[in-house]
Every structure is written in structure tokens, then in C-alpha cells.
């Protein structure tokens, strides 16, 4: 019973948060613009979590993550806008079409992740980084070439299906799935690769396979996030998803702390909302990225693990200790080790 309550409580918290925000909006404390900022923050959380799976939990180094986002954005928009004609679709079909679009966006991104991952994930560190950067730029240049989706001008008239509830829903689903992934054999294999690739290989972990799985999984999430983004903006353009956007996510991730979902949430949320909040004190857009840059360098110099540094909020991890404490130590408390205890030096 207690366990069920512990599971349900965070979800209830999210629902309560939703109603609180909607109430604040109805009494005009928050306006549509505030809600929109929060929606972008949600998309950014998904992107940062996705990047965290590759960079933080698997120890690879992707710096072209916006490429997957753009594939998702375009994939979803093509389904909702070009195939189903945007707002011309029957009212009751809009949600299914929207979800189908997001799914297609995620699959396209995941599939391209697979295509690019198989040959390139053998490359190590720096080389992988530069290939992912190249990948992002190739995607952008290719999108600029395709006339039916508006080429460099971008695609307009995308229905604004994404609302705050959808963003919240997908953020929660992403967090649950990411958490479950990490606390499973897949996540453990990824952590093993991150911690020591040679040892992982020698312990029977098929490193290429698990790297590709984590890459494709992350690309899928990024694709969904891209789809949501396109249906907030109702407009996508290839140049939106440049290296600048990829490096934004790097900042969110490393500022929040790699290897921690809590860190990704915090990093993305704070760094999305803060500049908007600071706008009230005058126009800081010019200084925003300068401040980001300084934050990033200072964090790397003085707190290389980020704000959260591998720490996790309780509901974002699966606490095995409580699981095996009663099962195992309850029974076997007094047994002595069979192997000789070694004197520690």
C-alpha cells in the first residue's frame, strides 16, 4: 500500500501543478505568454533528458542533437500539415492526427539515429562529437534543399495543436521512460560503457549494440520533442535547428549535471525561464548567451559535475536498497563471508 502511494504521489503532484497553473492563468496572474514559456521549457526538458541519455548516461558525446529535433519537427509537421491538411482535418480527428504526427516524428528521428549510429558509434570521443556536429549540419542543409517543405524559408501553417497539458504529459512520460531505461539492464550496460568501455566489453557487454540502443532511444525522444515544438510555433525553419540550438542543450545538460534526470529538469527549466524573467528588467537578449557562456565555463571549472552532480530526486530513481533490504538482509543478516576477509591496507 505504501509503495503504491509512493508511486502515485509524484503523479498527483504533476496534476496538481497543472491545475494550479491553469487557475493562475484564469485569474490572470499568468498570461498566455507565461504558459508558452513553460511549454518551451517542457520541450527543452525533453531534449536535455534525451541528450543526457547519450552524453550523461552512456558517456558518448553528441553535439548535434538539434538535428534529431529538426527531423522530428519536420516529420510531425509533414503528417499533420501536408498529409492531413492542418486545420482542415475534422475536429474529432485532430488529436489522433497530432499523436500520429508526433509518433512519425519520433520514428523518423530514431531511424536516422540508427542509420547514423551504426557506422559512427565506433568512433571515440572527439571524433564522434565532430561527426554528430556534421550530421546536424547535413540535416539542416538537406532540409534547406527540399522545396515541398518550404526549403530555407521554412514551413508555415502548422496547426498549433500542442497545449500545456500535452507538454506536461510528454515530459512526465519521458521522465518515467528514461528512469525505467536507466534502472534496467539497458541502462546498466550504458553506465558500464560510460565508466569503462574496455571493462564493459570484457564483461560481456556488447558495447556497440547498447550504444546504438541508447542513441536511437534518445533520438526518438528528441524527435517527439521536435514535433511538440513545431506545433507550438506553428512554423519551422531549418536554420532554427543550428549548432546554436544544439549548444543550448549542451549548456542545459552540463549546467544541470550529467547523469542526473533532476539536473536535466533543473538546467532546462531554469535556463529557459530565467532569461524570460530577466526580460522584465530590460532587454538582456544580447547578454543572455554571454551569461550562459560564463555560467558554463565557471561550472566546468568549479563544479564539473553540474548543479546536481549525479544526485537524483527520490521519485526519479528506483531505490533498490529498500527492495533488497528486507528480502535479503532480513534473512541473511548474520551469515559470515565464506571467503577470507582481507586485511585492508
Amino acid at each position, binding site marked *: 500500500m505504501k509503495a503504491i502511494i509512493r508511486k502515485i504521489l509524484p503523479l498527483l503532484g504533476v496534476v496538481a501543478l497543472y491545475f494550479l497553473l491553469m487557475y493562475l492563468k484564469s485569474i490572470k496572474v499568468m498570461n498566455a505568454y507565461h504558459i508558452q514559456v513553460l511549454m518551451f521549457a517542457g520541450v527543452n526538458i525533453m531534449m536535455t533528458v534525451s541528450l543526457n541519455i547519450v552524453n550523461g548516461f552512456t558517456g558518448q558525446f553528441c553535439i548535434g542533437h538539434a538535428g534529431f529535433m529538426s527531423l522530428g519537427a519536420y516529420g510531425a509537421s509533414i503528417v499533420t500539415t501536408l498529409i492531413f491538411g492542418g486545420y482542415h482535418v475534422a475536429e474529432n480527428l485532430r488529436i489522433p492526427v497530432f499523436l500520429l504526427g508526433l509518433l512519425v516524428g519520433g520514428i523518423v528521428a530514431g531511424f536516422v539515429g540508427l542509420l547514423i549510429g551504426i557506422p559512427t558509434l565506433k568512433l571515440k570521443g*572527439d571524433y564522434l*562529437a565532430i561527426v554528430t556536429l556534421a550530421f546536424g549540419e547535413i540535416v539542416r542543409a538537406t532540409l534547406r534543399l527540399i522545396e515541398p517543405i518550404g526549403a530555407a524559408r521554412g514551413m508555415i501553417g502548422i496547426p498549433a495543436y500542442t497545449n500545456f497539458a500535452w507538454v506536461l504529459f510528454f515530459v512526465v512520460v519521458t521522465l518515467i521512460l528514461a528512469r525505467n531505461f536507466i534502472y534496467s539492464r539497458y541502462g546498466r550496460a550504458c553506465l558500464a560503457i560510460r565508466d569503462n568501455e*574496455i571493462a564493459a566489453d570484457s564483461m560481456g557487454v556488447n558495447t556497440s549494440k547498447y550504444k546504438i540502443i541508447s542513441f536511437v532511444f534518445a533520438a526518438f525522444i528528441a524527435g517527439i520533442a521536435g514535433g511538440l515544438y513545431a506545433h507550438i510555433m506553428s512554423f519551422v525553419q531549418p536554420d532554427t535547428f543550428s*549548432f546554436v540550438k544544439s549548444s543550448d542543450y549542451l549548456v542545459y545538460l552540463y549546467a544541470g549535471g550529467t547523469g542526473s534526470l533532476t539536473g536535466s529538469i533543473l538546467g532546462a527549466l531554469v535556463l529557459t525561464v530565467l532569461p524570460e524573467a530577466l526580460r522584465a528588467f530590460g532587454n538582456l537578449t544580447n547578454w543572455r548567451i*554571454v551569461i550562459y*557562456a560564463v555560467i558554463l*565555463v565557471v561550472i566546468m571549472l568549479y563544479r*564539473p559535475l553540474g548543479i546536481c552532480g549525479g544526485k537524483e530526486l527520490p521519485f526519479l530513481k528506483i531505490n533498490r536498497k529498500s527492495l533488497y533490504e528486507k528480502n535479503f538482509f532480513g534473512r541473511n543478516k548474520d551469515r559470515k563471508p565464506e571467503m577470507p576477509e582481507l586485511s585492508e591496507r
Partner: protein
Amino acid sequence: MSTLMQFLVYGLQLGSVYALLALGYTMVYGIVGMINFAHGDFLMIGALSTFFIAQLFSQIYAASGSYPALVVLVIILIAMVGTGFIGVGVEAIAYRPLRNRPKMSALITAVGVSMFLENFPRALPFIGPSPRSFPALFPSIKFNLSGVMISTTQIIMIALSLIFMLILYNVVNKTKIGMQMRAVSMDKNAAQLMGINVNQVISITFFIGAALAASSGIFYASIYPQVDVYMGSWLGTKSFIAAVIGGIGDIRGAMLGGFIMGITEILATSINSNLGYAIGFVILILILLFKPAGIMGKLTIDKV
């Protein structure tokens, strides 16, 4: 045929810009073992500072609109030395404390430094984001060699960059500081034990790299006479790719990669401008698939 030759001239001039910039990437990688993502921004600093220095000098020396050769030389020298010192400063402040930390930290820091170097001048009111037109430092007399147009600017810049590369190659291979650089690149600790001042060698490497980047910025701005704060970002990316194609860590590889990038880019751009932008990335992926360490690079084996 003459159009092809014409493209080759353009390819060489662009290639020399890439090659000069790629040298900095490759030297830093070879010696410190990190990718200095901010290296492209040294190009921008070089070009932008040249713009301002030239503006300063123009009131005194270039009333007629063109600069005397000696003044041009002084302007270039000031810009190169100044950028060199900025490179040394960046290394000392941001990279040195991270030298013994995981590679990833240095890489992320470099991304941060790059963002700073681009956006700090952008946020300053007297620089800002808008592009400025670069002054004509070099004389521009055009020749027509049987259908191929070539200007003195092109000749000067290609010749100068070849001279710079030759000097660098000889410095690294024939001088005492070059020997120290090679020693540090092989083993920092052993080099230190042999009495080499590792910090000093790394500072000098950054100085040379940044100064060369500044010169490539001046050359680039002389042929495409426009400067803005973001110019270093994509030129840097491409030059870095050139260095990787050639085999990062290898000086000849950087030159080779630079010229390959320049020439293929010009050829591809003549077909479609987006293709011109993407071709370098495609070549990079193809080359890495077959030669994971680039054309001249040697693959290192992990020691178990």
C-alpha cells in the same frame, strides 16, 4: 576548362584560409589533446580587430583610400600578435585548470569559451551583431590569364599563407621550441621531467595558433570583404573538419585537408549553394568511415 581553372583559383584561396585555421586546431590537438572549439573565433577576433585598427590608421595614412604596404604590414602584425595573446589568455584562464580532468570537461569548456567570444563582442554596443565591410588592405589589380581571372589580392594571400605554413613546418621540425612542442605532444610528464616548461610550450602553441587564425581571418575578409562576430563559428567548424579529414594532430594533414575542403566546396557551390555548405561534412563522414583517423593520422591503440 578555363571555368574549371577559375574554380581552382577560388578553391585555393578559400583552401588557404581553411588550412591556416586548421593548423591551429591540429597543433592544439596534437599538443594538449583537446579540440579547441573556440579556435574559429580567433579568426573573427583577428578580422574584427584588423577592421578597427585599420579604421584608426585610415585617418592618418589612408586619406586617399588605399594603405601603404608598410602600414598594412604593421596592421596585420598588430592584429596577429594581439589575437595571439588573446589565445594565450583563453588557455590560461579556461583550459589550463582543466588539463588533467576528463577530456569531456575541456570540450564543454571550449564550447562555452566559443559562445563567450562570439557573443561578448556582439553584446558590446560599439561592435554589435551587424556586419561591417572590410577595408581593402591589399592592392587589387586583376589579370586575365587566358580566361582565368586572378587578382593581386589572391596572389598575395595564397603566397603569404604558403609562406606562413612553410615557416611553421620548419619551426616545428627544425627549431628548439619545435622539438619541445613535439616532446610535449608525446608525453607531457616526461617532457616536464626533461626540463621542458610545459606551460610555456602550450602557451606558445596557442599563441602561434591564434596568430595564424588571425591571419586567415584577414585573408578571408580581404576576399569576402565583410566581417561580423559569427564569421568564426562556421569557418572554424569547416576548418576543424578539414583538420580531421587530413588527420588531426598532423601539420601536413591540416594543410592537405584545408585545400581539399576549399576546392571541393567551391566546386560543389557552383552546383548548389547548400550542397557547397554540406559537402565538407559529407566528405568528413565518408573519410572517417574508411580512415577513422583521417588521411595522414595514425590510430592509437588503447593500452590495456
